[in-house]
């Protein structure tokens, strides 16, 4: 009996491992609006890179997709789930920014326009291949046959009505040089991309903290009813914006103080996490990463030219 169970388990595990099925479960968050919530984890061969929130809006003209996920497989499975659930065709895609977990599913959508801010399109052209290589290393075979497929259209800031939904593209920056926020005025849903994280530590490989903090203020002023962060649970209030702001302010202050006191990188990486953020997923890991990204410029500002000697 035990042997049989073991065999069943083994067969089961193999089947799961080889099927590369992402557990995609679109959740309705507002009228005509669904979110496929990813895990608040780092990339791994177990989660296949399903660590990001993607969404879609079902309009009378067809479905508008926000972000395509981490891989060809993700994009294909996302599109299949959307078309099965809605019975409608996808008519356009928006990419919020140029990080790999948000756009590497694009190759499934080459028959529809894919919109992104110009800075995002440039970022994908410059860094897409490097990102893709990194993803293959981190999530392995989930990435099979994934090719970098840059967005095809410039997203322009402003309002446009698509199939009865008044959609506003807001062009911002801070998390990256091009952060597209999509605000559906018809439903009050705000897709913030990675400008907002919810109970998952913010990431900073291309961040400008001062700019990001200003951007968060403008997001908080928007009259949204539902907030879809790039990572973490969907919310109906400004709490995730406040949490992201508080964390980034703490990060900025910590790094600046450390540089002013002559600390080395590792000493900063070992900074204790304040109680307010200890429950935030991956916070220690992201602090270490952020020190690598942001500290070199800050510490150099606290060095003085030495006097050349004989």
């Amino acid at each position, binding site marked *: 009996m035990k042997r049989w169970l073991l065999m069943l388990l083994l067969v089961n595990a193999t089947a799961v491992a080889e099927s590369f099925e992402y557990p995609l479960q679109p959740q309705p968050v507002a009228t005509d609006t669904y979110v496929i919530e990813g895990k608040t984890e780092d990339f791994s061969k177990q989660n296949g890179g399903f660590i990001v929130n993607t969404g879609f809006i079902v309009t009378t003209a067809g479905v508008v997709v926000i972000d395509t996920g981490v891989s060809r497989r993700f994009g294909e499975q996302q599109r299949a789930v959307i078309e099965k659930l809605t019975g409608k065709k996808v008519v356009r895609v928006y990419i919020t920014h140029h990080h790999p977990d948000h756009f590497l599913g694009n190759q499934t959508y080459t028959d529809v326009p894919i919109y992104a801010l110009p800075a995002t399109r440039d970022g994908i052209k410059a860094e897409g291949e490097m990102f893709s290589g*990194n993803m293959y*290393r981190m999530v392995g075979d989930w990435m099979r046959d994934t090719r970098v497929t840059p967005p095809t259209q410039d997203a322009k800031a402003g309002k446009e009505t698509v199939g009865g939904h008044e959609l506003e593209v807001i062009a911002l920056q801070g998390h990256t040089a091009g952060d597209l926020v999509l605000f559906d005025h018809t439903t009050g849903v705000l897709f913030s991309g990675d400008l907002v994280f919810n109970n998952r530590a913010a990431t900073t490989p291309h961040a400008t903290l001062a700019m990001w903090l200003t951007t968060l203020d403008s997001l908080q002023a928007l009259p949204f009813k539902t907030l879809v962060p790039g990572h973490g649970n969907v919310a109906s209030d400004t709490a995730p914006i406040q949490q992201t702001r508080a964390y980034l302010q703490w990060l900025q202050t910590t790094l600046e103080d450390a540089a002013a*006191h*002559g600390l*080395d*990188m*590792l*000493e900063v*990486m070992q900074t204790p996490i304040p109680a307010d953020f200890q429950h935030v997923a991956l916070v220690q890991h992201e602090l*270490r*990463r952020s*020190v*690598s*990204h942001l500290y*070199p410029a800050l*510490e*150099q500002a*606290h*060095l*003085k*030219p*030495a*006097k*050349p*000697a*004989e």
Partner: protein
Amino acid sequence: MIRHGRWLVFCLLCQTAVAAEPDPLNSPQWEAMHTRFLNGEPYTFDSKVTVEAPPEAEDSLNVPIALRVTDLQGIQEMRVFADLNPLPHVLNFRPKTIAPNLAFRMKLQQGSPVRVAVKTADGLWHVGGTYVEAAGGGCTLPSLGTSSGDWSKTLGQVSANVWENPDNNRLRIRVMHPMDTGLASGIPTFHIENLNVKDAQGQVLAELDLYEPISENPMLSLDVGKNTTFTLEGRDNNGNKIAAEVTP
């Protein structure tokens, strides 16, 4: 199981040689490292000697490393090496009158143990280390300075600062240098070879030998006791001199 058996036989055979401690990092290169960097001399893995590093390298060109030694007297030499780097030798550090603490950044080509071996006056090497995971490519890329072509304008320039602390003053030094490894196609090895830190009276506080894996524009942090004024002297493998005075 079979492996275990073989290991036992091997141990019986080698028992007469040095009673080798098993490598806590289980590296296939440990014996080669022992021969090359410790001259095959007696050693012990010692928790008084630590290498601090992040578990994973966010930037393979700039992996932060800090060496810390507590309660170890008579330090002659500290050697830093990364077993699985194509260029394993990272640096030598000889603190003369200051604390045996040093922080710097290095290039890693792949995940590897990073170790420091500290030789004390009794001839014993005290070894500490940690494993750093890395995406790779840190050693085979040209430096940014060489790629952009503007390294020659700033070569050898030093920026620095001193922070006065109650227990130990902190000296931070940045020397502009490409630190090319010689592993990028068509770009020869070009790196700082040595750097001495002296006090205001010219007494040597510490000597450093730097090798190819040290990151471009090396950034060093030292704990320098009560000293506040320093002179730096060094040279690279092309004979370019480094000479600077640091005041608070």
